[in-house]
């Protein structure tokens, strides 16, 4: 009797769950008209792009109550792994409708998974956005993404430490890296502090240097440009010069790096604008920071404006609510000025939407940065960032160069040997 009851229970629960899943898949299938349905969005930073999307969701669902938006938070590597595995396997279920992709990866995804992302060429007004963003989401003349945040780079510095060493704000404006090292030596001698919080295994600063001269690991056509790239050579030399001069606070990994300037071990940090949230996390340093344009290289093409990172939104072509997804991105990210003011104040998200940059929030003075009009300055720099083609293989090149740099630091290889070794490796990597 008990056995029978148990088997009945099992059977009924099985049938029940089967009908349930059937119902579940039905509800998602029926809604396809514009202005309704469910949107799933993948992004990776709960303090940054997740919150920005939540904000966008709140604004959009006010007018479009039928749309149900779910913002899913995952680690960045997880977003990439899940997306790639699903695109590779060809399944259509389980993919998001909108996904955030890092700019360095955009060309790779767009060419490796043709037809998987929605073509937005005539849906989005690309003239509204910073010029350099548009080119990196264009493949064969078709434009795919909706530009989101900028990685406009700056030299964030501690005014108090530099003052102690006898330097004023004007001394850091539009300098070269050579001058930067010179100042660094003085800072080290007079205050005992390191000039720059710096991860020697990380190619971030190198990419800032290269883009400041309008160069990359590849030329405009996508051909490898490493061993004969004079700009890259100077960047590599500068890396070693900074380490040899002892002006860096060497760190390994993100956490140590952030800790280094939060603890006040270094006078500056040179990176993208998205670091501001982490700088401000140390409230006791309020009023002691300022930001200057990045130092430039000696190469004639180099300017004091560059970029590091940044990301954009992409719509999946297989999305069941593709039109809703596009409508959502268009209404909020390409046209809502207030939204951009809000996320700038709330999350420090520095959009690449140019019409928004005349808004009130962008011209406000920031107390943390000694009443400097940080965003006005940075939006001015953003417009002058040289545009480069990141190509499909940025991470292959970065991996190859940073691997070869270890021997250069220790003196086992010259800069030419280092670069040609890296070039050979990249060549091998991408000849498939």
């Amino acid at each position, binding site marked *: 009797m008990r056995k029978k009851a148990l088997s009945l229970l099992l059977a009924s629960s099985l049938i029940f769950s089967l009908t349930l899943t059937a119902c579940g898949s039905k509800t998602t299938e029926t809604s396809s008209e514009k202005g309704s349905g469910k949107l799933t969005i993948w992004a990776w930073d709960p303090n940054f792009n997740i919150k920005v999307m939540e904000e966008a969701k709140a604004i959009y669902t006010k007018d479009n109550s039928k749309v149900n938006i779910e913002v899913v938070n995952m680690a960045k590597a997880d977003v990439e792994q899940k997306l790639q595995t699903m695109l590779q396997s060809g399944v259509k279920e389980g993919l998001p409708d909108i996904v955030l992709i890092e700019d360095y990866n955009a060309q790779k995804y767009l060419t*490796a998974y*043709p037809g998987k992302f929605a073509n937005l060429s005539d849906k989005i007004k690309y003239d509204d956005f910073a010029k350099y963003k548009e080119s990196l989401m264009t493949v064969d003349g078709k434009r795919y993404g909706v530009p989101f945040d900028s990685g406009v780079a700056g030299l964030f510095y501690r005014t108090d430490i530099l003052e102690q060493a006898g330097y004023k704000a004007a001394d850091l404006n539009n300098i070269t890296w050579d001058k930067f090292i010179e100042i660094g030596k003085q800072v080290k001698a007079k205050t005992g502090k390191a000039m720059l919080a710096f991860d020697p*295994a990380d190619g971030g600063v190198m990419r800032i240097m290269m883009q400041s001269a309008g160069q990359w690991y590849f030329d405009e056509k996508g051909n490898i440009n490493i061993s004969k790239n004079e700009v890259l050579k100077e960047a590599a030399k500068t890396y070693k010069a900074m380490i040899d001069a002892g002006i860096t606070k060497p760190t390994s*990994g*993100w956490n140590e790096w952030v800790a280094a300037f939060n603890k006040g071990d270094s006078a500056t940090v040179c990176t993208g604008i998205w670091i501001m949230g982490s700088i401000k996390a140390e409230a006791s340093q309020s009023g002691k920071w300022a930001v200057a344009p990045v130092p430039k290289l000696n190469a004639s093409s180099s300017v004091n404006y560059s970029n590091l990172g940044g990301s954009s939104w992409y719509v999946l072509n297989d999305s069941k609510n593709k039109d809703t997804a596009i409508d959502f991105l268009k209404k909020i990210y390409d046209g809502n000025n207030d939204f951009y003011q809000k996320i700038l104040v709330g999350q420090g998200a520095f959009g690449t939407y140019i019409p928004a940059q005349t808004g009130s929030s962008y011209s406000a003075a920031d107390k943390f940065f000694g009443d400097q009009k940080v965003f006005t300055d940075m939006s001015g720099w953003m417009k002058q960032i040289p545009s480069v083609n990141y190509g499909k293989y940025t991470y292959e090149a*970065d*991996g190859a160069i940073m691997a070869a740099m270890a021997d250069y630091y220790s003196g086992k290889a010259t800069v030419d040997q280092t670069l040609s070794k890296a070039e050979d*490796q990249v060549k091998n990597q991408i000849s498939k």
Partner: protein
Amino acid sequence: MAHSKNNVVTKNQPNIKFKNTKYNSFEKIQNRNGWLFISFALTLLLIFIFYPILYSFYLSFTSSKGLISKFVGVNNYIKIFSDPMFITALKNTVIFLLCQVPIMLLLALIIASILNDKTVKFRGVFRTGIFLPAVTSLVAYTVLFKMMFSMDGFINSTLMTIHVIKEPIPWLMKPFWARVTLIIAMTWRWTGYNMVFYLAGLQNVPDELYEAAEIDGASKIQQFFKITIPMLKPIIVFTTIMSTIGTLQLFDEPMNLAAGGTTAATIGPGNSLLTLSGYIYNLCFKFMPNFGYAATISYVIVFIVGLLTVIQFKVAGDNN
């Protein structure tokens, strides 16, 4: 199994033909039901184990850029020999194998034989304590080690306070020290695990052997080399093979020790912690996705594991 039973039956009753056929039909039903019963498990096995093995073998003859994939024959297997990244990964893996496994196994053996001594007090506490790291999560312990071994972490500041070193050691900044850190971390995590195998093996070594040796005047060290090691030989072979396979598939520890590089694509300074599995990960998810080439490398790992296992059996195993 059904067949062997059938043979027995026909042997015992060769003359009674009609009964035999009857039995055969019964056997058939049993056979069919037997297959029916295992069919479910077998289907799962085919779909989830054999199909991926065969498909990845096929994949290893293709080269892909995301969805665009082409058949390249044995090209991938030729390419690995001139791929500097693969050679770096292989070199690193071999370094970890040759340095870490012997240190760890010898340490485990010594600790096991000490803790097997009945005169040692609080044996249970020590055994538990040394085994405990083996239950921690790979990621969690690696992250802890990364914090402890940072430039101004616990290890450096301790060593400096007790005046062992003057300058902080750049544990995770220089290739050499990064490898040392990884070896220390792995030894901490896995020594206790191997010790338990040796302890179990030691329970089967009769005390009389040690008593006899003691009467003959053998020292503790002689006993260790002349009794303990020979008696534990099969277990030593087993742990060596397990550790070899584990090291060749090493992924979690180096990945997490190096992880969080602000925007980096290298694993460890100068790729010093890049292992074969780490390279497979990079090929699939960090670089232009090439699952074909990644499958080739995983088959190379299979080949190396097989080869090393055969060698270890030949060198250390019994002759039967």
